[in-house]
Protein backbone atom coordinates (compact mmCIF):
# COMPACT_ATOMS: atom_id res chain seq x y z
CA UNK A 1 0.00 0.00 0.00
CA UNK A 2 1.17 3.45 -0.83
CA UNK A 3 2.76 5.53 1.85
CA UNK A 4 4.39 8.91 1.73
CA UNK A 5 7.85 7.59 0.91
CA UNK A 6 9.28 9.06 -2.32
CA UNK A 7 10.63 6.82 -5.03
CA UNK A 8 14.19 7.95 -4.28
CA UNK A 9 13.83 7.13 -0.60
CA UNK A 10 12.37 3.78 -1.36
CA UNK A 11 15.14 2.87 -3.85
CA UNK A 12 17.81 3.74 -1.35
CA UNK A 13 16.01 1.72 1.32
CA UNK A 14 15.95 -1.25 -1.04
CA UNK A 15 19.69 -0.82 -1.76
CA UNK A 16 19.42 0.11 -5.43
CA UNK A 17 22.55 1.97 -6.45
CA UNK A 18 22.48 5.50 -7.78
CA UNK A 19 24.30 4.20 -10.83
CA UNK A 20 21.65 1.67 -11.77
CA UNK A 21 18.93 4.22 -11.07
CA UNK A 22 20.54 6.67 -13.51
CA UNK A 23 20.86 3.88 -16.07
CA UNK A 24 17.15 3.31 -15.73
CA UNK A 25 16.52 7.03 -16.06
CA UNK A 26 18.64 7.17 -19.23
CA UNK A 27 16.70 4.26 -20.73
CA UNK A 28 13.38 5.83 -19.82
CA UNK A 29 14.43 9.20 -21.21
CA UNK A 30 15.42 7.65 -24.48
CA UNK A 31 12.22 5.61 -24.57
CA UNK A 32 10.18 8.76 -24.19
CA UNK A 33 12.16 10.28 -27.05
CA UNK A 34 13.51 13.04 -24.86
CA UNK A 35 16.99 14.49 -25.46
CA UNK A 36 19.85 13.00 -23.37
CA UNK A 37 20.18 16.34 -21.56
CA UNK A 38 16.89 15.49 -19.91
CA UNK A 39 18.29 12.46 -18.07
CA UNK A 40 19.16 14.43 -14.93
CA UNK A 41 15.78 16.15 -14.98
CA UNK A 42 14.05 12.78 -15.29
CA UNK A 43 16.18 11.41 -12.46
CA UNK A 44 15.39 14.39 -10.24
CA UNK A 45 11.70 14.13 -10.97
CA UNK A 46 11.56 10.40 -10.42
CA UNK A 47 13.51 10.65 -7.20
CA UNK A 48 10.96 13.03 -5.75
CA UNK A 49 7.97 11.09 -7.12
CA UNK A 50 5.62 9.65 -4.54
CA UNK A 51 4.50 6.08 -5.01
CA UNK A 52 0.97 6.27 -6.20
CA UNK A 53 -1.58 3.60 -5.55
CA UNK A 54 -2.51 1.57 -8.58
CA UNK A 55 -5.64 -0.50 -9.08
CA UNK A 56 -5.43 -2.96 -11.94
CA UNK A 57 -8.83 -4.05 -13.19
CA UNK A 58 -9.12 -7.10 -15.40
CA UNK A 59 -12.31 -7.46 -17.44
CA UNK A 60 -12.93 -9.41 -20.65
CA UNK A 61 -9.28 -10.24 -21.20
CA UNK A 62 -6.92 -13.11 -21.77
CA UNK A 63 -4.26 -12.12 -19.23
CA UNK A 64 -1.88 -11.68 -22.15
CA UNK A 65 -1.32 -8.06 -21.15
CA UNK A 66 -0.35 -9.08 -17.63
CA UNK A 67 1.78 -11.85 -19.07
CA UNK A 68 3.50 -9.33 -21.28
CA UNK A 69 4.17 -7.09 -18.33
CA UNK A 70 5.46 -9.87 -16.11
CA UNK A 71 7.74 -11.19 -18.85
CA UNK A 72 9.60 -7.94 -18.62
CA UNK A 73 9.62 -7.79 -14.85
CA UNK A 74 12.55 -9.48 -13.56
CA UNK A 75 15.28 -8.77 -13.38
CA UNK A 76 15.18 -5.76 -15.65
CA UNK A 77 14.95 -2.18 -14.65
CA UNK A 78 11.29 -2.13 -15.39
CA UNK A 79 10.77 -3.93 -12.12
CA UNK A 80 11.88 -0.76 -10.45
CA UNK A 81 8.82 0.92 -11.68
CA UNK A 82 6.74 -1.75 -10.07
CA UNK A 83 8.52 -1.05 -6.91
CA UNK A 84 7.82 2.55 -7.55
CA UNK A 85 4.12 2.15 -7.52
CA UNK A 86 1.88 0.52 -5.05
CA UNK A 87 0.02 -2.15 -6.93
CA UNK A 88 -2.83 -2.55 -4.52
CA UNK A 89 -5.24 -4.62 -6.55
CA UNK A 90 -4.50 -7.09 -9.34
CA UNK A 91 -6.41 -10.35 -9.71
CA UNK A 92 -3.61 -12.33 -11.13
CA UNK A 93 -0.79 -11.00 -9.00
CA UNK A 94 -2.39 -10.31 -5.65
CA UNK A 95 -2.11 -12.86 -2.93
CA UNK A 96 -5.34 -12.21 -1.17
CA UNK A 97 -8.74 -13.15 -2.51
CA UNK A 98 -12.44 -12.78 -1.96
CA UNK A 99 -13.91 -10.01 0.18
CA UNK A 100 -10.55 -8.96 1.47
CA UNK A 101 -9.29 -8.31 -2.02
CA UNK A 102 -12.36 -6.27 -2.87
CA UNK A 103 -11.94 -4.41 0.38
CA UNK A 104 -8.44 -3.37 -0.68
CA UNK A 105 -9.89 -1.78 -3.81
CA UNK A 106 -12.48 0.27 -1.95
CA UNK A 107 -9.94 1.21 0.66
CA UNK A 108 -7.69 2.79 -1.94
CA UNK A 109 -10.65 4.71 -3.34
CA UNK A 110 -11.53 5.98 0.09
CA UNK A 111 -8.01 6.77 1.27
CA UNK A 112 -6.52 8.35 -1.85
CA UNK A 113 -9.35 9.95 -3.76
CA UNK A 114 -8.05 11.79 -6.85
CA UNK A 115 -4.53 10.35 -6.44
CA UNK A 116 -4.57 6.73 -7.50
CA UNK A 117 -4.20 5.33 -11.00
CA UNK A 118 -6.58 2.79 -12.55
CA UNK A 119 -5.08 0.37 -15.05
CA UNK A 120 -7.58 -1.65 -17.02
CA UNK A 121 -7.03 -4.62 -19.23
CA UNK A 122 -9.88 -6.25 -21.14
CA UNK A 123 -13.04 -4.83 -22.60
CA UNK A 124 -16.27 -4.21 -20.77
CA UNK A 125 -19.44 -6.12 -21.70
CA UNK A 126 -22.55 -3.98 -21.82
CA UNK A 127 -25.17 -6.23 -23.40
CA UNK A 128 -27.84 -7.65 -21.09
CA UNK A 129 -26.82 -5.29 -18.28
CA UNK A 130 -23.26 -6.48 -18.45
CA UNK A 131 -23.92 -9.95 -17.00
CA UNK A 132 -21.26 -11.55 -19.16
CA UNK A 133 -18.50 -10.62 -16.79
CA UNK A 134 -18.99 -10.02 -13.07
CA UNK A 135 -16.64 -9.96 -10.08
CA UNK A 136 -17.85 -10.29 -6.55
CA UNK A 137 -21.40 -9.79 -7.75
CA UNK A 138 -20.61 -6.56 -9.56
CA UNK A 139 -20.62 -6.14 -13.30
CA UNK A 140 -17.49 -4.82 -14.96
CA UNK A 141 -19.30 -1.59 -15.77
CA UNK A 142 -20.16 -1.07 -12.10
CA UNK A 143 -16.64 -1.85 -10.92
CA UNK A 144 -15.10 0.42 -13.53
CA UNK A 145 -17.46 3.29 -12.82
CA UNK A 146 -16.98 2.98 -9.07
CA UNK A 147 -13.21 2.68 -9.28
CA UNK A 148 -12.62 5.33 -11.90
CA UNK A 149 -14.83 7.90 -10.21
CA UNK A 150 -12.10 9.05 -7.83
CA UNK A 151 -9.08 8.12 -9.97
CA UNK A 152 -6.41 10.58 -11.10
CA UNK A 153 -6.28 8.91 -14.50
CA UNK A 154 -7.14 5.69 -16.25
CA UNK A 155 -4.67 3.75 -18.31
CA UNK A 156 -6.27 1.29 -20.71
CA UNK A 157 -3.69 -1.43 -21.14
CA UNK A 158 -4.04 -3.50 -24.30
CA UNK A 159 -6.26 -3.21 -27.31
CA UNK A 160 -9.30 -4.74 -25.55
CA UNK A 161 -9.38 -1.99 -22.94
CA UNK A 162 -8.33 0.68 -25.39
CA UNK A 163 -10.52 -0.17 -28.38
CA UNK A 164 -12.61 -3.23 -27.53
CA UNK A 165 -10.22 -5.74 -29.06
CA UNK A 166 -11.17 -9.36 -29.63
CA UNK A 167 -14.39 -9.37 -27.55
CA UNK A 168 -15.53 -6.34 -29.54
CA UNK A 169 -14.91 -8.10 -32.89
CA UNK A 170 -17.88 -8.87 -35.09
CA UNK A 171 -20.43 -10.10 -33.98
CA UNK A 172 -19.49 -8.82 -30.51
CA UNK A 173 -21.87 -11.10 -28.55
CA UNK A 174 -21.30 -9.42 -25.18
CA UNK A 175 -21.63 -5.85 -26.40
CA UNK A 176 -18.02 -5.29 -25.42
CA UNK A 177 -16.82 -1.70 -25.34
CA UNK A 178 -13.53 0.02 -24.52
CA UNK A 179 -12.93 1.96 -21.32
CA UNK A 180 -13.40 5.23 -23.13
CA UNK A 181 -17.03 4.32 -23.86
CA UNK A 182 -17.78 4.07 -20.12
CA UNK A 183 -15.50 6.66 -18.58
CA UNK A 184 -15.81 10.04 -20.16
CA UNK A 185 -14.81 12.45 -17.39
CA UNK A 186 -11.28 11.23 -16.63
CA UNK A 187 -8.07 11.41 -18.56
CA UNK A 188 -7.55 8.07 -20.31
CA UNK A 189 -4.28 6.87 -21.75
CA UNK A 190 -4.67 4.07 -24.25
CA UNK A 191 -1.70 1.71 -24.29
CA UNK A 192 -2.87 -0.48 -27.13
CA UNK A 193 -1.37 -3.66 -28.49
CA UNK A 194 -2.30 -7.27 -28.26
CA UNK A 195 -0.48 -7.32 -25.97
CA UNK A 196 1.26 -3.95 -25.56
CA UNK A 197 5.03 -3.93 -25.45
CA UNK A 198 6.01 -4.31 -21.73
CA UNK A 199 8.48 -1.46 -21.92
CA UNK A 200 5.77 0.74 -23.31
CA UNK A 201 3.50 0.00 -20.35
CA UNK A 202 6.27 0.81 -17.91
CA UNK A 203 7.34 3.77 -20.02
CA UNK A 204 3.88 5.32 -19.77
CA UNK A 205 3.95 4.82 -16.00
CA UNK A 206 7.43 6.33 -15.83
CA UNK A 207 6.22 9.33 -17.75
CA UNK A 208 3.30 9.72 -15.40
CA UNK A 209 5.63 9.52 -12.39
CA UNK A 210 8.19 11.85 -13.93
CA UNK A 211 5.94 14.58 -15.19
CA UNK A 212 2.89 13.90 -13.08
CA UNK A 213 0.51 14.19 -15.95
CA UNK A 214 -0.84 12.78 -19.15
CA UNK A 215 1.62 12.58 -22.05
CA UNK A 216 0.76 14.01 -25.45
CA UNK A 217 -1.75 11.66 -27.06
CA UNK A 218 -2.75 10.88 -30.62
CA UNK A 219 -6.34 10.96 -31.88
CA UNK A 220 -6.88 7.52 -30.41
CA UNK A 221 -5.62 8.52 -26.98
CA UNK A 222 -2.27 6.78 -27.33
CA UNK A 223 0.96 8.40 -26.12
CA UNK A 224 2.61 9.90 -29.17
CA UNK A 225 6.06 9.06 -27.86
CA UNK A 226 5.34 5.37 -28.43
CA UNK A 227 2.64 5.46 -31.05
CA UNK A 228 3.73 8.43 -33.13
CA UNK A 229 5.36 6.43 -35.90
CA UNK A 230 3.93 3.63 -37.96
CA UNK A 231 5.64 0.26 -37.94
CA UNK A 232 6.23 0.76 -41.67
CA UNK A 233 7.99 4.10 -41.17
CA UNK A 234 10.50 2.53 -38.80
CA UNK A 235 10.66 -0.92 -40.37
CA UNK A 236 14.11 -2.17 -41.30
CA UNK A 237 12.51 -3.82 -44.36
CA UNK A 238 11.25 -0.48 -45.64
CA UNK A 239 13.96 -0.15 -48.34
CA UNK A 240 12.59 -3.31 -49.97
CA UNK A 241 9.14 -1.75 -50.05
CA UNK A 242 10.52 1.37 -51.69
CA UNK A 243 12.31 -0.76 -54.27
CA UNK A 244 9.20 -2.84 -54.90
CA UNK A 245 10.78 -6.06 -53.62
CA UNK A 246 8.07 -8.15 -52.00
CA UNK A 247 7.95 -11.66 -50.59
CA UNK A 248 5.10 -13.44 -52.34
CA UNK A 249 4.92 -16.44 -50.07
CA UNK A 250 6.35 -17.32 -46.68
CA UNK A 251 8.90 -19.64 -48.18
CA UNK A 252 10.06 -17.96 -51.36
CA UNK A 253 13.48 -16.48 -52.00
CA UNK A 254 12.16 -13.00 -51.22
CA UNK A 255 10.96 -14.15 -47.81
CA UNK A 256 14.35 -15.70 -47.12
CA UNK A 257 16.14 -12.56 -48.23
CA UNK A 258 14.05 -10.47 -45.87
CA UNK A 259 12.00 -8.61 -48.46
CA UNK A 260 8.96 -6.54 -47.58
CA UNK A 261 5.93 -8.50 -46.34
CA UNK A 262 3.31 -6.06 -47.74
CA UNK A 263 1.90 -8.60 -50.16
CA UNK A 264 1.60 -11.16 -47.35
CA UNK A 265 -0.74 -8.82 -45.56
CA UNK A 266 1.57 -6.67 -43.44
CA UNK A 267 -0.45 -3.88 -41.80
CA UNK A 268 2.72 -1.97 -40.83
CA UNK A 269 1.83 1.10 -42.91
CA UNK A 270 -1.35 1.77 -40.93
CA UNK A 271 -0.20 0.46 -37.54
CA UNK A 272 1.18 2.77 -34.93
CA UNK A 273 3.37 1.20 -32.27
CA UNK A 274 6.95 1.05 -31.10
CA UNK A 275 7.63 -2.58 -32.09
CA UNK A 276 10.13 -1.69 -34.80
CA UNK A 277 12.19 0.46 -32.41
CA UNK A 278 11.68 -0.85 -28.86
CA UNK A 279 11.14 -4.44 -29.99
CA UNK A 280 10.17 -7.36 -27.79
CA UNK A 281 11.85 -9.78 -25.41
CA UNK A 282 14.43 -7.33 -24.19
CA UNK A 283 14.94 -5.84 -27.61
CA UNK A 284 15.45 -9.15 -29.35
CA UNK A 285 13.16 -8.71 -32.31
CA UNK A 286 9.64 -7.97 -33.44
CA UNK A 287 7.21 -9.97 -35.61
CA UNK A 288 8.38 -8.64 -38.97
CA UNK A 289 11.94 -9.47 -37.99
CA UNK A 290 10.76 -13.04 -37.42
CA UNK A 291 9.32 -13.10 -40.93
CA UNK A 292 5.68 -12.49 -40.12
CA UNK A 293 3.65 -9.53 -41.31
CA UNK A 294 2.36 -7.03 -38.78
CA UNK A 295 -1.24 -7.80 -37.78
CA UNK A 296 -2.01 -4.23 -36.83
CA UNK A 297 -2.82 -5.30 -33.26
CA UNK A 298 -2.46 -1.85 -31.74
CA UNK A 299 -5.18 -0.41 -33.99
CA UNK A 300 -8.94 -0.48 -33.46
CA UNK A 301 -10.92 -3.29 -35.07
CA UNK A 302 -7.84 -5.14 -36.24
CA UNK A 303 -9.76 -8.39 -35.96
CA UNK A 304 -12.38 -7.08 -38.35
CA UNK A 305 -10.02 -5.73 -41.01
CA UNK A 306 -10.14 -8.86 -43.14
CA UNK A 307 -7.65 -11.68 -43.20
CA UNK A 308 -4.31 -10.97 -41.57
CA UNK A 309 -2.80 -12.25 -44.79
CA UNK A 310 -4.73 -10.00 -47.17
CA UNK A 311 -2.71 -7.06 -48.44
CA UNK A 312 -3.67 -3.67 -47.08
CA UNK A 313 -4.75 -2.53 -50.54
CA UNK A 314 -7.07 -5.49 -51.04
CA UNK A 315 -10.69 -5.18 -50.02
CA UNK A 316 -11.89 -6.42 -46.68
CA UNK A 317 -14.17 -9.33 -47.32
CA UNK A 318 -14.61 -11.53 -50.32
CA UNK A 319 -15.41 -9.49 -53.41
CA UNK A 320 -17.19 -12.45 -54.97
CA UNK A 321 -19.84 -11.94 -52.27
CA UNK A 322 -21.05 -8.77 -53.91
CA UNK A 323 -19.57 -8.82 -57.41
CA UNK A 324 -21.56 -11.75 -58.77
CA UNK A 325 -24.90 -10.52 -57.38
CA UNK A 326 -24.08 -7.02 -58.66
CA UNK A 327 -23.41 -8.38 -62.14
CA UNK A 328 -26.66 -10.35 -62.02
CA UNK A 329 -28.59 -7.33 -60.72
CA UNK A 330 -26.98 -5.13 -63.38
CA UNK A 331 -27.89 -7.58 -66.11
CA UNK A 332 -31.48 -7.81 -64.89
CA UNK A 333 -31.89 -4.06 -64.45
CA UNK A 334 -30.08 -3.42 -67.73
CA UNK A 335 -32.32 -5.83 -69.60
CA UNK A 336 -35.42 -4.25 -68.04
CA UNK A 337 -34.33 -0.69 -68.77
CA UNK A 338 -33.04 -1.62 -72.21
CA UNK A 339 -36.25 -3.34 -73.20
CA UNK A 340 -38.22 -0.43 -71.82
CA UNK A 341 -36.13 1.92 -73.99
CA UNK A 342 -36.72 -0.28 -77.00
CA UNK A 343 -40.45 -0.23 -76.48
CA UNK A 344 -40.37 3.51 -75.87
CA UNK A 345 -38.61 3.94 -79.19
CA UNK A 346 -41.00 1.59 -80.98
CA UNK A 347 -43.94 3.57 -79.54
CA UNK A 348 -42.46 6.79 -80.85
CA UNK A 349 -41.95 5.20 -84.25
CA UNK A 350 -45.50 3.90 -84.32
CA UNK A 351 -46.90 7.30 -83.34
CA UNK A 352 -44.90 9.12 -85.97
CA UNK A 353 -47.00 10.63 -88.78
CA UNK A 354 -45.23 10.52 -92.14
CA UNK A 355 -44.08 13.93 -93.30
CA UNK A 356 -45.34 15.14 -96.65
CA UNK A 357 -44.49 18.07 -98.85
CA UNK A 358 -47.70 19.70 -97.70
CA UNK A 359 -46.30 19.89 -94.17
CA UNK A 360 -43.48 22.01 -95.54
CA UNK A 361 -45.56 24.54 -97.36
CA UNK A 362 -45.40 27.73 -95.38
CA UNK A 363 -48.91 28.78 -94.65
CA UNK A 364 -47.83 32.28 -93.79
Amino acid at each position, binding site marked *: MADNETLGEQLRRQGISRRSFLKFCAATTSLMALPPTMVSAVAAALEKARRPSVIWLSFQECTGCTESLTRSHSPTLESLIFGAISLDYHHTLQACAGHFAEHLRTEVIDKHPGEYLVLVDGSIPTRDDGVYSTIAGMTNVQILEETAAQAAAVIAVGTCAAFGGLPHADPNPTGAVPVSDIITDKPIINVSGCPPIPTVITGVLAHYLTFGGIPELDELGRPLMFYGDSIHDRCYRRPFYDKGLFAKTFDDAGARDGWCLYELGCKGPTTHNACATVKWNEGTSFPIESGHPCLGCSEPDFWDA*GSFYNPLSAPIGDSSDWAAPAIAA*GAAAGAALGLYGRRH*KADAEARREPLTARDLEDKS
Partner: protein
Amino acid sequence: MSGIELLNWARGPGLQIAGAVFVIGVIVRLAAILLLGRKTDLSRPREGAMWPGLRTVLTRSIPDAGTFRRSPLVFIAGYVFHLGFLLTLLFYAPHILLLKSVTGLEWPGLPVSLIDVLAVLSITALVALFINRLIDPVRRHLSRCGDWLALLVTVLPLVTGYLALNRMLLPYTDMLAWHILSVELLLVVFPFSKLMHTFSFVLARWYNGAIAGRKGVQV
Protein backbone atom coordinates in the same frame (compact mmCIF):
# COMPACT_ATOMS: atom_id res chain seq x y z
CA MET B 1 -14.34 7.88 -36.52
CA SER B 2 -10.59 7.39 -36.41
CA GLY B 3 -8.44 7.02 -39.49
CA ILE B 4 -8.18 3.26 -39.15
CA GLU B 5 -11.92 2.87 -38.67
CA LEU B 6 -12.53 5.03 -41.72
CA LEU B 7 -10.01 2.93 -43.61
CA ASN B 8 -11.68 -0.30 -42.56
CA TRP B 9 -15.04 1.07 -43.64
CA ALA B 10 -13.57 2.19 -46.96
CA ARG B 11 -11.91 -1.17 -47.55
CA GLY B 12 -14.99 -3.08 -46.50
CA PRO B 13 -18.59 -1.87 -46.77
CA GLY B 14 -17.63 1.29 -48.68
CA LEU B 15 -15.90 -0.61 -51.41
CA GLN B 16 -18.72 -3.13 -51.62
CA ILE B 17 -21.36 -0.43 -51.98
CA ALA B 18 -19.35 1.60 -54.49
CA GLY B 19 -18.31 -1.52 -56.39
CA ALA B 20 -21.89 -2.73 -56.64
CA VAL B 21 -23.14 0.69 -57.80
CA PHE B 22 -20.37 0.80 -60.38
CA VAL B 23 -20.92 -2.71 -61.71
CA ILE B 24 -24.71 -2.42 -61.82
CA GLY B 25 -24.59 1.10 -63.24
CA VAL B 26 -22.13 0.32 -66.01
CA ILE B 27 -23.97 -2.82 -67.09
CA VAL B 28 -27.29 -0.97 -67.08
CA ARG B 29 -25.89 1.89 -69.12
CA LEU B 30 -24.29 -0.40 -71.68
CA ALA B 31 -27.38 -2.58 -71.91
CA ALA B 32 -29.56 0.49 -72.37
CA ILE B 33 -27.37 1.56 -75.29
CA LEU B 34 -27.06 -1.82 -76.96
CA LEU B 35 -30.67 -2.91 -76.53
CA LEU B 36 -31.88 0.19 -78.37
CA GLY B 37 -30.56 -1.57 -81.43
CA ARG B 38 -30.34 -0.20 -84.93
CA LYS B 39 -31.85 -1.05 -88.25
CA THR B 40 -30.07 -3.46 -90.55
CA ASP B 41 -28.35 -1.51 -93.31
CA LEU B 42 -29.83 -2.67 -96.61
CA SER B 43 -27.40 -0.83 -98.86
CA ARG B 44 -24.85 -2.94 -100.69
CA PRO B 45 -21.62 -2.68 -98.67
CA ARG B 46 -18.39 -1.82 -100.39
CA GLU B 47 -16.47 -3.55 -97.61
CA GLY B 48 -17.27 -5.33 -94.38
CA ALA B 49 -18.19 -3.33 -91.30
CA MET B 50 -16.72 -5.38 -88.45
CA TRP B 51 -13.03 -5.02 -89.20
CA PRO B 52 -13.05 -1.30 -90.08
CA GLY B 53 -15.07 -0.77 -86.89
CA LEU B 54 -12.47 -2.57 -84.80
CA ARG B 55 -9.71 -0.71 -86.59
CA THR B 56 -11.30 2.60 -85.73
CA VAL B 57 -11.54 1.56 -82.08
CA LEU B 58 -7.73 1.48 -82.12
CA THR B 59 -6.77 4.07 -84.71
CA ARG B 60 -8.97 6.83 -83.32
CA SER B 61 -6.58 6.97 -80.36
CA ILE B 62 -4.16 8.79 -82.61
CA PRO B 63 -5.29 12.08 -84.13
CA ASP B 64 -4.37 13.06 -87.67
CA ALA B 65 -1.67 15.70 -87.85
CA GLY B 66 -4.01 18.55 -88.72
CA THR B 67 -6.43 17.79 -85.91
CA PHE B 68 -3.58 17.51 -83.44
CA ARG B 69 -2.19 20.85 -84.56
CA ARG B 70 -5.55 22.54 -84.03
CA SER B 71 -6.00 21.40 -80.40
CA PRO B 72 -2.52 20.42 -79.18
CA LEU B 73 -3.19 21.01 -75.49
CA VAL B 74 -6.29 18.86 -75.39
CA PHE B 75 -4.45 16.02 -77.06
CA ILE B 76 -1.18 16.26 -75.14
CA ALA B 77 -2.83 16.78 -71.76
CA GLY B 78 -5.44 14.18 -72.68
CA TYR B 79 -2.76 11.62 -73.48
CA VAL B 80 -0.69 12.38 -70.41
CA PHE B 81 -3.71 12.21 -68.15
CA HIS B 82 -5.14 9.01 -69.61
CA LEU B 83 -1.81 7.20 -69.74
CA GLY B 84 -0.76 8.41 -66.29
CA PHE B 85 -4.09 7.44 -64.80
CA LEU B 86 -4.17 4.01 -66.43
CA LEU B 87 -0.56 3.20 -65.62
CA THR B 88 -0.86 4.23 -61.97
CA LEU B 89 -4.15 2.38 -61.72
CA LEU B 90 -2.92 -0.81 -63.32
CA PHE B 91 0.78 -0.97 -62.50
CA TYR B 92 1.19 0.29 -58.94
CA ALA B 93 1.95 -2.83 -56.90
CA PRO B 94 -0.76 -2.35 -54.21
CA HIS B 95 -3.32 -1.72 -56.96
CA ILE B 96 -2.31 -4.97 -58.65
CA LEU B 97 -2.93 -6.77 -55.36
CA LEU B 98 -6.37 -5.19 -55.18
CA LEU B 99 -7.20 -6.18 -58.74
CA LYS B 100 -5.79 -9.63 -58.11
CA SER B 101 -8.10 -10.08 -55.15
CA VAL B 102 -11.07 -9.18 -57.35
CA THR B 103 -10.09 -10.79 -60.66
CA GLY B 104 -7.55 -13.42 -59.70
CA LEU B 105 -5.17 -12.05 -62.33
CA GLU B 106 -1.70 -10.78 -61.59
CA TRP B 107 0.97 -8.93 -63.52
CA PRO B 108 4.27 -7.19 -62.75
CA GLY B 109 4.19 -3.63 -61.44
CA LEU B 110 6.20 -0.49 -62.09
CA PRO B 111 8.73 1.00 -59.65
CA VAL B 112 7.19 3.32 -57.07
CA SER B 113 9.41 6.19 -58.22
CA LEU B 114 7.91 5.94 -61.70
CA ILE B 115 4.36 5.70 -60.35
CA ASP B 116 5.09 8.85 -58.37
CA VAL B 117 6.15 10.72 -61.49
CA LEU B 118 3.19 9.40 -63.48
CA ALA B 119 0.77 10.58 -60.79
CA VAL B 120 2.29 14.07 -60.82
CA LEU B 121 2.12 14.19 -64.63
CA SER B 122 -1.44 12.98 -64.63
CA ILE B 123 -2.50 15.56 -62.03
CA THR B 124 -0.69 18.30 -63.91
CA ALA B 125 -2.46 17.30 -67.10
CA LEU B 126 -5.84 17.42 -65.37
CA VAL B 127 -5.07 20.84 -63.96
CA ALA B 128 -4.09 22.00 -67.44
CA LEU B 129 -7.33 20.59 -68.84
CA PHE B 130 -9.25 22.30 -66.04
CA ILE B 131 -7.67 25.68 -66.77
CA ASN B 132 -8.16 25.15 -70.48
CA ARG B 133 -11.82 24.35 -69.90
CA LEU B 134 -12.11 27.63 -68.02
CA ILE B 135 -10.50 29.79 -70.67
CA ASP B 136 -11.02 28.06 -74.03
CA PRO B 137 -14.19 29.53 -75.55
CA VAL B 138 -15.35 26.24 -77.09
CA ARG B 139 -14.75 24.10 -74.05
CA ARG B 140 -16.24 26.70 -71.73
CA HIS B 141 -19.30 26.90 -73.96
CA LEU B 142 -19.73 23.12 -73.86
CA SER B 143 -19.09 22.73 -70.13
CA ARG B 144 -21.84 21.82 -67.74
CA CYS B 145 -21.85 20.76 -64.08
CA GLY B 146 -21.08 17.20 -65.10
CA ASP B 147 -17.80 18.24 -66.69
CA TRP B 148 -16.56 19.93 -63.53
CA LEU B 149 -17.78 17.06 -61.39
CA ALA B 150 -16.02 14.53 -63.61
CA LEU B 151 -12.78 16.51 -63.34
CA LEU B 152 -13.11 16.67 -59.56
CA VAL B 153 -13.86 13.01 -58.95
CA THR B 154 -11.04 12.04 -61.31
CA VAL B 155 -8.39 14.25 -59.79
CA LEU B 156 -9.22 13.36 -56.17
CA PRO B 157 -7.98 9.76 -56.28
CA LEU B 158 -4.80 10.92 -58.00
CA VAL B 159 -4.14 13.66 -55.47
CA THR B 160 -5.00 11.60 -52.40
CA GLY B 161 -3.06 8.66 -53.79
CA TYR B 162 -0.03 10.85 -54.38
CA LEU B 163 -0.25 12.39 -50.90
CA ALA B 164 -0.65 8.96 -49.29
CA LEU B 165 2.26 7.56 -51.27
CA ASN B 166 4.45 10.42 -50.12
CA ARG B 167 3.13 10.55 -46.54
CA MET B 168 2.05 14.15 -46.95
CA LEU B 169 -0.60 16.38 -45.36
CA LEU B 170 -2.39 13.72 -43.28
CA PRO B 171 -1.23 10.60 -41.44
CA TYR B 172 -0.88 7.74 -43.90
CA THR B 173 -3.84 5.81 -42.49
CA ASP B 174 -6.18 8.78 -42.91
CA MET B 175 -4.88 9.66 -46.35
CA LEU B 176 -5.15 6.06 -47.47
CA ALA B 177 -8.73 6.02 -46.22
CA TRP B 178 -9.52 9.23 -48.10
CA HIS B 179 -7.80 7.85 -51.17
CA ILE B 180 -9.99 4.75 -51.16
CA LEU B 181 -13.07 6.85 -50.39
CA SER B 182 -12.27 9.15 -53.29
CA VAL B 183 -12.01 6.12 -55.56
CA GLU B 184 -15.39 5.00 -54.25
CA LEU B 185 -16.82 8.42 -55.07
CA LEU B 186 -15.41 8.00 -58.57
CA LEU B 187 -16.98 4.55 -58.87
CA VAL B 188 -20.37 5.82 -57.71
CA VAL B 189 -20.36 8.87 -59.98
CA PHE B 190 -18.97 6.91 -62.92
CA PRO B 191 -22.07 5.25 -64.41
CA PHE B 192 -24.12 8.43 -64.18
CA SER B 193 -21.63 10.74 -65.80
CA LYS B 194 -19.60 11.26 -68.93
CA LEU B 195 -17.00 8.99 -67.34
CA MET B 196 -19.05 6.26 -69.05
CA HIS B 197 -17.04 7.11 -72.14
CA THR B 198 -14.38 4.82 -70.65
CA PHE B 199 -16.54 1.94 -71.91
CA SER B 200 -18.94 3.50 -74.40
CA PHE B 201 -16.14 4.93 -76.51
CA VAL B 202 -15.53 1.43 -77.80
CA LEU B 203 -19.11 1.27 -79.05
CA ALA B 204 -19.01 4.81 -80.43
CA ARG B 205 -15.77 4.25 -82.31
CA TRP B 206 -16.93 0.90 -83.56
CA TYR B 207 -20.22 2.26 -84.90
CA ASN B 208 -18.43 5.16 -86.56
CA GLY B 209 -15.76 2.94 -88.08
CA ALA B 210 -18.30 0.34 -89.17
CA ILE B 211 -20.65 2.88 -90.75
CA ALA B 212 -17.79 4.44 -92.69
CA GLY B 213 -16.07 1.12 -93.30
CA ARG B 214 -18.94 -0.43 -95.19
CA LYS B 215 -18.79 2.59 -97.48
CA GLY B 216 -15.12 1.89 -98.07
CA VAL B 217 -13.81 4.75 -95.97
CA GLN B 218 -11.32 4.04 -93.23
CA VAL B 219 -11.89 6.60 -90.50
